[in-house]
């Protein structure tokens, strides 16, 4: 406990933002050694994310978006630089950073309920059984699965599986939510539905979120800021676009907003050049 206090104090003395940023990435570099020499995926990338901010990262395939996200999640070792999440330098994966993967990654032999419970038990092991049960049921009904709670994950459709994935991530009450193209595998109708589900739950929880996406409209609708990454190798942040729509947002209002097409054009221009 003491050391934690100390480190906090030291950070303040050094003039570092203590509470302003939830996530602080400095000079992050990822190098994959290959027989032909080092392949630099990310080169001195800096990114700061505020509390309760929803940012989306957009860029071409292979630019290292997913590498960045898996490094924040702690699933991929860092070559150089630091990632500080909630005032702690990350060293490995942990439930303080919830991940929603591209494929729902549910355990297919378990029910939707058990899939969420697996994580909840891990994080709220100290609580009572009733508490955990309430948490799981609350989030599953939030994502519209109250009737399918006890179905095996393998019997659910892709869209429903990803709903469970969302419930699982939020139920752990992470400090940062990492979304790796969560709707990339879904058809456009289901994708729209799930974006609504996601933003609805997010509006209540306000968890700092970082989402990787390919979809320009998705990034405008969901994010406060869109980070555009340059094409790899040696990718870094190319441009940042602030999205100034009020929250809570409704899809219709966003589409009708005069700035919408301005934002859209900006993003598409960046991606095409």
């Amino acid at each position, binding site marked *: 406990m003491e050391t934690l206090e100390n480190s906090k104090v030291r950070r303040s003395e050094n003039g570092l933002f203590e509470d302003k940023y939830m996530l602080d990435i400095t000079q992050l570099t990822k190098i994959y050694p290959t027989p032909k020499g080092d392949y630099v995926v990310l080169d001195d990338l800096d990114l700061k994310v505020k509390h309760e901010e929803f940012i989306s990262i957009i860029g071409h395939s292979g630019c290292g978006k997913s590498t960045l996200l898996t490094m924040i999640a702690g699933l991929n070792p860092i070559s150089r630089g630091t990632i500080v999440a909630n005032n702690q330098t990350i060293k490995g994966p942990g439930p303080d950073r919830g991940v929603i993967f591209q494929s729902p990654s549910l355990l297919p*032999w378990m029910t939707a309920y058990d899939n969420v419970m697996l994580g909840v038990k891990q994080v709220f092991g100290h609580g009572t059984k009733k508490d955990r049960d309430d948490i799981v049921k609350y989030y599953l009904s939030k994502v519209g699965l109250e009737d399918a709670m006890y179905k095996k994950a393998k019997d659910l459709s892709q869209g429903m599986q990803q709903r469970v994935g969302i419930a699982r991530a939020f139920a752990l009450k992470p400090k940062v939510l990492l979304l790796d193209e969560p709707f990339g595998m879904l058809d456009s109708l289901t994708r729209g539905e799930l974006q609504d589900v996601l933003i609805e739950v997010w509006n209540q929880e306000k968890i700092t979120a970082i989402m990787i996406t390919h979809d320009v409209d998705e990034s405008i609708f969901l994010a406060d800021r869109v980070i555009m990454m340059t094409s790899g190798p040696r990718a870094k942040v190319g441009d940042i676009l602030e999205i100034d729509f009020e929250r809570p947002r409704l899809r219709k209002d966003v589409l009708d907003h005069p700035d919408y097409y301005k934002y859209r054009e900006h993003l598409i221009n960046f991606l095409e050049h």
Partner: protein
Amino acid sequence: MKDKSINILNFIGLGFFEPAIRLASGEETKKNLVALFKKIVLPILSVGLFLLLWSAGSSHLYNIEKEFRIEKAFNERGEAAARLERSCIDSGSKDCQITTLPSPSQVWVAYKSLLADHASISAKKDAFAEKVAATNVKRAEQGLDAITYTGRPSFVDQIFTSLKTVFAGFLLALFIAVPIGIMLGLSESLRSSVNWLIQILKPVSPVVWLLLVSMIVNTLGKNSDGDSSFTISFISVGLCAMWATLVNTSMGVSSVDKDYINVAKVLQLNIGQKVFKIILPSSFPLIFTGLRITLSVAWMVLIAIELLAQSPGLGSFVWEEFQNGANDSNSKIIVAMFVIGIIGFLLDRIMLTIQKFVTFTEET
């Protein structure tokens, strides 16, 4: 009711009755008639064809053997002897019985005689048990072993002995191969360090395993006076058959979907939770496929091992009949062949049904 019985039939692997049930309930007559024809009539026809070929083949072999003997008698002892030989063969007398591939009807007769033999032996056993019941009670009071029936076992008894051996061997394989397979699957360095051993031992013939096991068991069992043939044969069966499970388990455990492993990492599950909640369930289909192969290999090598280890069972039954050379021995061997095949098939079906119960199948 109808759907329920169809589901049950499909589940236990008798799905080919489905069209018959649907037909009986008057559902889509034409489609179900075609299905019925494909699933039931055609297999029956092919069985008939098989029997026809078999009996034609066996009568052909019979004629070759018969002509050979008559000609031999003619060449050695003249025409009268040849005529005598022919009438002797035709009369079906035991003295000049022709032994070759038996015909289906001979096999059927042998099958019924084996059943009759079993009935008479069971009757004898019951009578014996009744006779010694009082004595056994007395012996038990004196702390002596009970007197048991030591007569010849019947064919059915041999089947049960074989099943007992194969299950003991299967369980041994299960308890050795699954835990070791899990450990190998979890650690790549362990896997590569013992891989050479597995690759070398896997193709070793059942016979050699038997010899190896008997070397060890005979030495270890020097001081006990019990019959070690059962121990030797079930251990050999287990050792021969466990490789499929070992390899499949380690493969299943080592190739768990990376997404599942990431979930375990993000949730920071401990090693026990990781193994029991994620790794084992996801590799269960592969482990079970391995177990199915193990059981069928176990049943297959069992016959050879019993034959060599002189432990009672179907293998020694076949061997004794072969050595015996009685006029219906060949037919009995064929009966044993069918029984072995059918039991092997049933064992596989049982495993398949259990597999459906306990494993998940991912939608493809």
